């Protein structure tokens, strides 16, 4: 069969669907093994996502939509369907840098496992927000 030439995206969180069967050009995901860009006919893979930015580029040269995800999984099937499944995700513009910094300081104050995970997520959020300024 000919290699598929388009990338079909399903991007969902438990309580909402962000993209469903959307044809896109490229997706950049923050995988645990490293940030990767996925285009059409990418090799099939399954990878865990660390907290960070998922960028969706609808067509070549278009501006990327940025979403901050708290973590989750990305799978690419052999027929060029990419599924991004996150526990929580929201457009980057919806986040406030000052509140994120404040929450990061609070989370870093104690060392319980919950706080460490919170700190990791807020750190990624603060980095993402400062980089996008």
């Amino acid at each position, binding site marked *: 069969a000919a290699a598929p030439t388009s990338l079909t995206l399903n991007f*969902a969180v*438990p309580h909402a669907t962000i993209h469903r069967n959307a044809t896109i050009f490229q997706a950049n995901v923050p995988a645990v093994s490293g940030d990767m860009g996925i285009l059409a006919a990418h090799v099939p*893979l399954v*990878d*865990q996502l660390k907290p960070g930015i998922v960028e969706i580029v609808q067509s070549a040269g278009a501006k990327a939509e940025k979403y901050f995800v708290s973590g989750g*999984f990305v799978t690419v*099937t052999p027929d060029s369907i990419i599924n991004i499944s996150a526990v929580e995700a929201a457009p980057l513009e919806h986040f406030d840098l000052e509140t994120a910094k404040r929450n990061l300081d609070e989370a870093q104050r104690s060392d319980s496992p919950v706080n460490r995970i919170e700190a990791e997520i807020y750190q990624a959020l603060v980095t993402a927000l400062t980089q996008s300024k």
Partner: protein
Amino acid sequence: MPNLKLIAMRLKSVTNIQKITQSMKMVSAAKFAKAERDLKAARPLGIAAQQFYKSADIQSDKEQPKEIFVALTSDRGLAGAVHSNINKNIRAQLEAKIAAGGPSAIDNCKIICVGDKSRAFFSRFFPKQILMVGNEIGRLPPTFNDASKVANAILSSGYDYDTGKLLFNYYKSVVSNETTELPIYSQELVLSSENVSVYDSLDADVVQSYMEYSLASLIYYCMKEGATSEQSSRMSAMDNSSKNAGEMIDKLRITFNRTRQAVITGELIEIISGAAAL
């Protein structure tokens, strides 16, 4: 002739029942509207979670694989046939195994009862197969957190299953839902399947994390479907109940009036025959 007072008491109690079932129907209708909205959002997540396993097409090659059945019911009854459909489905599957291979054929099968309704059923019929029970289900709409707890309990149960089935009611419409099963697999089975080796950079760690996450997603999806089916089924059941109660009230009123008139006629006859005797 039945006592006038008895009929009056019965009339009052049936009227109360009608009021109660009416209000239960209203409450269910409100919960159903919310559940259906949540389901619309959750369905793509469920479909995406199933896609990996569907395209991997994993088969177990053991003769008697260790199986678990996860019965996703809830604690609350008066919901029509939803809970009994799931329970009977599992019982039929277990009985088919017994018919094929004798009573020891189900030693490898365990049941995880999510919700009191399945627990009550299986502790009567298959008490030895119950592995775990979960309750406090059904009061509030299911969240991803609840699903993660169930997934965690399954994975840390210590029971080394090869394959499993999630049983739930797939919501088709307000008046119809269908008992469906979704397959779940163990980690060794996924890793040893040939279609899975096509995936790049897949090591045991990633598979384990992915399986934990997708199990929680699948359970979340099944819980959402189940909740919607349950609320719509309860809505119809309570609606039928109120209609039946209404019919009974009409019949009882007629009987009450006839009895009242018969009593009055009886008194008149007594008075007239008494006067005639003088």
